[in-house]
């Protein structure tokens, strides 16, 4: 579904991504782990071109999104993204947050968009918050809304950048539960996280990034039980 070859990203002189190759298949839950500054966010943000790669190619559903002639707005509708800081639109109600993109981009009618939004809100247990503003919600609620907002576009893949890192510990579970359900429903996901329990439980593959490279990858049981790269060992020793 997403094929990345030779992905390279420099910020000025800083070489942040250094030749990333990966092929993400439909239905996979790829969990990206690694030390801070290793390029995990940059990698994820390259996948929907929030960062422009300085080299390499990204092909999404058969279309090269890194090609100059590509109109990225079309593919982004099929790639949901969830941010560490939620980034809900504070001047809109929860319902407006969720329905804006479907209505404006996919020309879904207001009734239809509202129905989809309320169904999704129901699924994350927040149907009663439709009329609330983001400022009135807890962090965990905001993040679940942010997930719903992305899902309302019915994307083919969901990208998560440390979705629980800005949350108070007691709210991490409710967000992870939503993500687990999503994975169980067969959503293709790429998740940058420090939640090793989540990686172990729902990840189909784990990438360990270090210094702008994928230092090691494999199925979770293997990586966690039996890391081969000494850097992976060191990192897991710290976080587990």
């Amino acid at each position: 579904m997403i094929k990345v070859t030779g992905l390279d990203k420099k910020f000025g002189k800083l070489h942040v991504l250094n030749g990333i190759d990966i092929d993400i298949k439909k239905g996979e839950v790829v969990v990206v782990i690694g030390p801070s500054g290793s390029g995990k966010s940059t990698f994820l943000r390259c996948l929907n071109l929030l960062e422009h790669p300085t080299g390499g190619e990204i092909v999404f559903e058969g279309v090269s999104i890194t090609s100059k002639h590509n109109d990225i707005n079309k593919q982004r509708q099929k790639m949901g993204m969830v941010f560490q800081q939620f980034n809900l639109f504070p001047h809109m109600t929860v319902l407006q947050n969720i329905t804006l993109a479907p209505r404006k981009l996919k020309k879904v009618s207001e009734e239809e968009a509202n129905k989809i939004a309320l169904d999704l809100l129901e699924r994350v247990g927040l149907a009663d918050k439709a009329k609330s503003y983001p400022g009135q919600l807890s962090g965990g609620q905001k993040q679940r809304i942010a997930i719903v907002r992305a899902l309302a576009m019915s994307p083919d893949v969901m990208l998560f950048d440390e979705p629980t890192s800005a949350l108070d510990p007691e709210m991490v579970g409710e967000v992870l539960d939503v993500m687990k359900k999503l994975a169980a429903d067969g959503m293709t996901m790429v998740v940058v996280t420090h939640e090793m329990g989540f990686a172990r439980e729902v990840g189909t593959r784990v990438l360990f990034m270090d210094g702008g490279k994928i230092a090691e990858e494999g199925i979770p049981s293997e990586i966690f039980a039996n890391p081969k790269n000494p850097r992976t060992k060191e990192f897991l020793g710290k976080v587990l």
Partner: protein
Amino acid sequence: MNFSFLSEYYVYFIEGAKNTILLAAFTVLLGVMLGIILALMKISRNPILKVISTSYIEFIRGTPLLVQIYIVFFGLPYIGIHIPDVPFLGQDFPRFMAGVIALSLNSGAYVAEIIRAGIQAIDKGQMEAARSLGMSHYMAMRYIILPQAIRNILPALGNEFVVIIKESSIVSVIGISELMFSADTVKGVTFQPFEPLIVVAVIYFVLTFTISRLLGVAERRMRAGD
């Protein structure tokens, strides 16, 4: 102190206050239009537009308003631009317009900075979230960034109105019969150098204080709507 001249000359002050308000209102209107254009140029990705806008803003902010007013007043006829004398609310129209233009050219630079700051104060995560949903840059600006930025910008624009009311006093030097000019006139005919100034100071203060209060109320209303 002797304010007995008021009974005879109060109309000068009323006329002056009226013209000051007119001057400020037209200046804000034109200044905001110019400010929007300059701000859009400054945040655009076109380097030429950026340079033009930035240079203009820096020049205006780096030179005295008095000099700018003289440049416009004497410069316009010099480069062959003559403002036609159309009847307008009892104004010496060419003079009045020269004052409005000079003040707007000045105010536009400050307004541009107010708008730019208001837009750039919006967390960049807002633009990213909008773009990640597939919205174009334009749509993200229209539905996400600008509606939030306007809440930062409007109060500052109101304040700019107050600033212009005060600064417009300086266009009395080119003979526009606004409030400051009326003080000079009354000084001249009464040979009282001091008291007319007290009168205009009080009028300026009443104007700015009233407007500030009204803006404060409007701002609280707006915030309460959140």
